[in-house]
């Protein structure tokens, strides 16, 4: 007990100080809280927009306060931008068009949804920071009475050349503050900017993409199939080759079979050595099975779809072909420019079941090649 004697006065001091702090703290007028149910969205999230012409930016702010703010106590909303972005969000100091909105495009039903427009006679201005002690700030004044139940919405539209975006890509931390003379709520948002948010490039600007496709040879003899006999596999070296500019390429394939199902067809029978179900793979690796299918080798940088992969499929397993255009299946693709040309070898596998009729079987495979839209 003796060794704790020194600690007791220290503990008492901390306790007394804590009690005093707790008792005296209500004298501070300000109550700080966090904004709930809030978002800040920009119509464009591209860097270096200057607020002119097609570089115009709009903002929608939604928030639910944690407490009430009164118009009589000078309720206001402020949006503060990072110090590093000085004079980039407020390209020039000046007024913004501000409107309370009861709904907005970013509303997510069941999640964050604006339920009331921000009340009051709203006035907004963009002021530039000095780069050392103050930051670019959007201030909305004249805000009416705000409760802590509704999610309020407000839209800010740039007057020409006023509202812009940072020149720095990535996440930019922005603070939103709702306050009056007595209370204050705030929240920080990470606004993510991209170097280019343009979704579509018009064809008139881009060079016309081209795709050139080669199929060689056009006929692949599979030799003789024996009913109940062994598996026949014939490779057609580099049968498909493609080059493309700008936008990559893809190949799809479909068979004809008997018109309903793809496969090797003997019209004289008639008899169809079916290419599986037109989905997945066809396994003709074991005796007594029957079927027809193809596998492809994968050119470097391209992708052969799983069902048609020569390396992924085991011996005797082939991709199943569908019949007619309706059954076309994707077999090979690459999403970027391809030069020099890519080539792929195709393996044709077939096995006739014991009930197969003797005759000359054929399948007409159409290979469809294209560039992406």
């Amino acid at each position: 007990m003796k060794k704790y004697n020194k600690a007791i006065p220290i503990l008492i001091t901390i306790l007394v100080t804590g009690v005093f702090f707790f008792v005296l703290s209500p004298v501070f007028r300000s109550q700080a809280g966090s904004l709930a149910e809030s978002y800040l969205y920009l119509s464009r999230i591209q860097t270096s927009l200057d607020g002119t012409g097609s570089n115009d930016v709009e903002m929608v702010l939604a928030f639910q306060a944690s407490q009430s703010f009164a118009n009589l106590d000078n309720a206001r909303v402020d949006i503060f931008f990072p110090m590093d972005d000085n004079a980039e969000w407020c390209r020039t100091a000046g007024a913004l068009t501000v409107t309370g909105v009861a709904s907005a495009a970013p509303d997510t039903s069941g999640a964050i949804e604006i339920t009331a427009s921000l009340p009051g006679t709203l006035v907004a201005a963009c002021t530039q920071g000095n780069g050392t002690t103050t930051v670019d700030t959007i201030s909305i004044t004249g805000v009416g009475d705000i409760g802590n139940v509704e999610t309020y919405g407000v839209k800010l539209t740039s007057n020409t050349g006023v509202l812009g975006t940072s020149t720095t890509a990535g996440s930019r931390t922005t603070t939103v503050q709702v306050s009056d003379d007595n209370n204050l709520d705030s929240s920080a948002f990470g606004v993510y900017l991209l170097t280019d948010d343009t979704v579509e490039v018009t064809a008139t600007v881009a060079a016309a993409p081209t795709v050139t496709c080669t199929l060689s040879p056009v006929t692949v003899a599979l030799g003789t199939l024996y009913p109940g006999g062994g598996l026949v596999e014939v490779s057609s070296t580099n049968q498909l080759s493609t080059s493309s500019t700008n936008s990559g390429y893809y190949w799809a394939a479909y068979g004809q079979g008997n018109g309903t199902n793809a496969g090797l067809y003997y019209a004289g029978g008639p008899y169809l050595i079916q290419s599986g179900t037109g989905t997945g793979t066809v396994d003709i690796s074991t005796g007594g099975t029957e079927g027809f299918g193809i596998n492809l080798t994968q050119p470097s940088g391209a992708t052969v779809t799983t069902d048609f992969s020569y390396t992924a499929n085991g011996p005797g397993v082939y991709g199943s072909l569908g019949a007619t255009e309706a059954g076309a299946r994707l077999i090979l693709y690459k999403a970027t420019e391809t030069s020099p040309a890519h080539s792929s070898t195709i393996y044709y596998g077939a096995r006739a079941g014991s009930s197969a009729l003797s005759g000359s079987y054929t399948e007409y495979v159409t290979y469809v090649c294209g560039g992406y839209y």
Partner: protein
Amino acid sequence: MKNLKRYSAPWLNKQIVLFLAVFFALFFAFPKQNLFAQTSLNIGTAPASEKLTLQPGEKYEGEIVVWNLSERTTTYDIFVRGFRQIENQPGTAIMFTEEEEARSLYSAAPWVTVSKQKVDLIPNRNEKIFYEINVPEDATKGEYTVIIAFISEDVQQQLGSTAAFTSLSSGTPILVKVGEDFAENAELLQFDTDRDWYEEPNVKFFTRVNNLGDTHITPIGEIVLTNIFDQEVGKIVFNESAQSILRDNSASYETLWDYGSFLSNDNKLILGPIQADLILMYRNFQPGFAPLTATTSFWIIPWKYILLLLLVIITTVVILKMRKRKKDKPPQQLPK
């Protein structure tokens, strides 16, 4: 004289007949098969696609250039039909069958006329196919699709054995928006990696987007990678080739991050847990108001290097201990 000649060397006559028979058999049978086996088909098209915005009653005239780089002239039949996307692959087009065409509400094929029904493509020469789109006055708002497709004419021949005959098809898909104010809406169905951990930064991301709107969308964006210290270690462009998703379709995108180093450009560590944040835009108008975002994570554990390092450490410790033991042990005195 004739008789003399014939009977002077009867064995020679037999040889000649046999030779001729074999020659004709080879000439008529095998070379034909080989000839087809060597034949190749080639077609190039430009543009690869067209995206148009037209109004009811408007007429549009366009052209497609096709060429053939093979060594023989090939005839291609020209088809004008609506098209659909192939499976989950964005930006692909396969033309409708006749039945599908008849059922389709949004095929622009009835509005399109082409300058030719078939074309002979002479090797190494460009051929222009002109087409005209006449949007009817009473066309309802919507996005319509049509493909002007070229399919090589069948090289049908009998080989006398089982065979696969092939044809080549290519074409130019055209997307025609009629009207204005389209609803662009989409949802993110998947954002994931193909594995949970990797030996090196060679990661494949799978993203699946569902188009819920009434027009095609072209999602673009970025995948941002941060390490355990919350430092940005990489940024990958999503859908670099701007592949689109037709309406009422979903599509899967593969994005590869093959960095090849455990240090980023600004010397940040690419090891341990890595967080990947995806941000996508898909709207033409005010894209920032509707981004799609998702997060996934994976580990980069170069276990071979770690194992090697551990082995080196263990070996060093063992050697040091052995040396120390050797030092501590008093030297044995030689027997006197």
